[in-house]
């Protein structure tokens, strides 16, 4: 990852850049969502960033509503100069973002995966289908508020005796301090996730709160 590119980006597309960072030598530039494709083209043509490495997203549900929820990440490198850069942008829930397939054909499957896992629609993608999950699948697994153990079987399970989970398996499988229950956290109900993070109440910490069973 290289600093020169960030500087050139600042110079040529200063208006598009929202924020730059270099943590542990990884240079990242966050650009406005609308100039996502423009900057990508510029990277490919002016900087010979011809080698697409990866494209993915991260879900920060707690940013909403002030900030867009998803953060798209693009990793590209140049086969000529061996330079690398990480490009980022923020997309809200349901907002469209320009597809990069015309810039790097390799983005095709990567974008399909992001669409499949996070539900981010891409503008101008040749065929935007689910790729890892099946068409019948509802919801987007890698969103934080999708419960990890919610299955949607295609084949009805046989009735087998004594194969359901018994304690200590079950709701939390003995995970210390329990799993993070994102749904509750977003509802603002969860007092604490683990002793390491969270509010300090009185003298002794509250343990993480449990699931509200219905009602």
């Amino acid at each position: 990852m290289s600093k020169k590119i960030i500087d050139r980006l600042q110079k040529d597309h200063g208006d598009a850049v929202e924020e730059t960072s270099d943590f542990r030598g990884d240079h990242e530039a966050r650009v406005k969502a609308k100039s996502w494709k423009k900057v990508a083209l510029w990277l490919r043509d002016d900087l010979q960033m011809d080698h697409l490495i990866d494209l993915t997203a991260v879900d920060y549900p707690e940013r909403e509503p002030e900030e867009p929820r998803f953060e798209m990440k693009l990793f590209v490198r140049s086969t000529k100069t061996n330079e690398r850069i990480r490009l980022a942008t923020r997309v809200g829930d349901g907002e469209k973002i320009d597809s990069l397939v015309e810039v790097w054909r390799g983005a095709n499957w990567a974008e399909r995966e992001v669409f499949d896992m996070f539900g981010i629609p891409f503008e101008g993608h040749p065929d935007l289908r689910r790729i890892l999950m099946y068409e019948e699948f509802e919801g987007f697994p890698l969103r934080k508020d999708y419960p990890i153990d919610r299955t949607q079987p295609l084949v009805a399970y046989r009735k087998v005796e004594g194969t359901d989970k018994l304690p200590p398996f079950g709701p939390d499988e003995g995970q210390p301090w329990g799993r993070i229950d994102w749904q509750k956290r977003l509802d603002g109900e969860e007092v604490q996730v683990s002793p390491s993070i969270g509010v300090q109440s009185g003298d002794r910490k509250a343990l993480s709160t449990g699931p509200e069973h219905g009602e």
Partner: protein
Amino acid sequence: MPTFKLDGQEIPFEPGDTIIRAAWRQGIEIPHYCWHPGLSIAANCRMCLVEIKSGRQMALPILEWDAKKKEYVNATKPKLQPACQIQAQEDMEVESKSDNALKAQETTQEFLLLNHPVDCPICDQAGECKLQDYWLTSQKKLKRKKTEPVHKPKGVRFGPTIVYDAERCIMCTRCIRFVDEVANDPVLDMRERGNTNEIVLSPGRELDNDYTLMTEHVCPVGALTSRDFRFKARVWFLKSQPGVCTGCATGCNTWVDYDPRYQRVYRLRPRDNEDVNQYWMCDDGMLTYHAFHEDRIVAGRVFAQGRVNEVPRDQALAAAAQVIGKAEKGKLAVVLSAQHSSEDNFVLGQLAAEHLGADRFYLTGKPDWRGDEILRHTDQNPNRNGAKAVSPTAPEPMSRLVSDIEAGEVTAVISLGPATELTEAELAPIQNLASQGAGAASHVNLTANAGPLTSAASVVVPVTSVAESSGTFVNADGIAQQFKKAVQAPGGIQPAWHTLVEIGKMLGWEIDLARLGDVRAAMPKALPAAAEEAAPAPA
């Protein structure tokens, strides 16, 4: 509001606040063992030492090892001061993360662990132990001392509820200060000095007052453990839901700690609430969780052929519906319970008034007990005010019900909860009423536990306990507080209000109360419950 600087951050404080308290109000924790928001200041653990940049600098002369000269040279280092004792002042500049402060914390922590036994695997505090937390944040080093640690008494019985382990003790004296200042029963003190000193009981006394379990709660390490909780569960498998104590009319706020794998409650802990219980609870209150699981009514009971038969829940519901359906107009007595949530009482009162035209409402509850001026209220019932508030007409005492029955004005009773002030003898008329069988006249009781009213009923319908349902209590001061469902009720048991709705549906009534939200919406706005949310109280 004046402010001072802590690590460059502006902290507002009220005049008289110490640094640590002002920071704590902002949710910033300065490492500490002996300081407790509800206790006096001892400043003896030296963990909260901070560097105060503003004002007159104090310096200590020290000898410093000079690597070049290969000898000790005279040097000075700033004098650190305990954040728990120094009062915050306008524009004060405090450094709790400066090198000197961190060094001091590290050294203090190392000394505290110097003679600590290797007990984490068998210690009940493991997982919520300050020694563990601060080791990670402040020390981060393995042991340097190679010699045998000092040994001190283990497993000393302090009283019926508390066991003391001197080796784990760090002498923060929180327990001593608590029994002295809060419980007003100064039986604890410390003897000896240095690495041999320990907590002892006053000669001839033992730790046996109404607030002994609090000493365990304020203990920042595993020195004091409660005989009720020790060796029962591991805290990192427990989860907490905000609850309200059912012990008395004070309505202390609690954390209900339960294990989601076994759906069982293991302990109650006080939840801070400046308006109600500050940081404390009484022993009887902390032990009320036993009622969530012990002598529970999980199946229905129907009195027939002169004996009580256990029946499944649905049959009990049918029998109850039959009794209520047969009840003569105006001769049905509705007994609300000060032990049940406002929601339960409200639904019972509403349904009876609307669909049965009942106008006789009575209020039952546990008899008064010995109160004190700390927390314990003489009224043992958490929700007397709430029940009164939601009752269609002002409820009569139970004694009146007895006389009404004797006068023959009441031939059927539907009652809530197991508790009653009446004695065995006074209950006799209700008993007789019940023993006539589930026929013309009878007594239906909805309850979670067995109790006097239960044994005087001809039909018993199981309902959930407080830990298994959400609801609202109104305490003696009229503060309405909501508690949350923690564990799943056994065998599909439903809350009392829901059970009543089911019975009503069996009788073909039109009821549009499906969820708790509907009930709360329908409850009189006069009740603050609809507005106020109890959980979790800002410290």
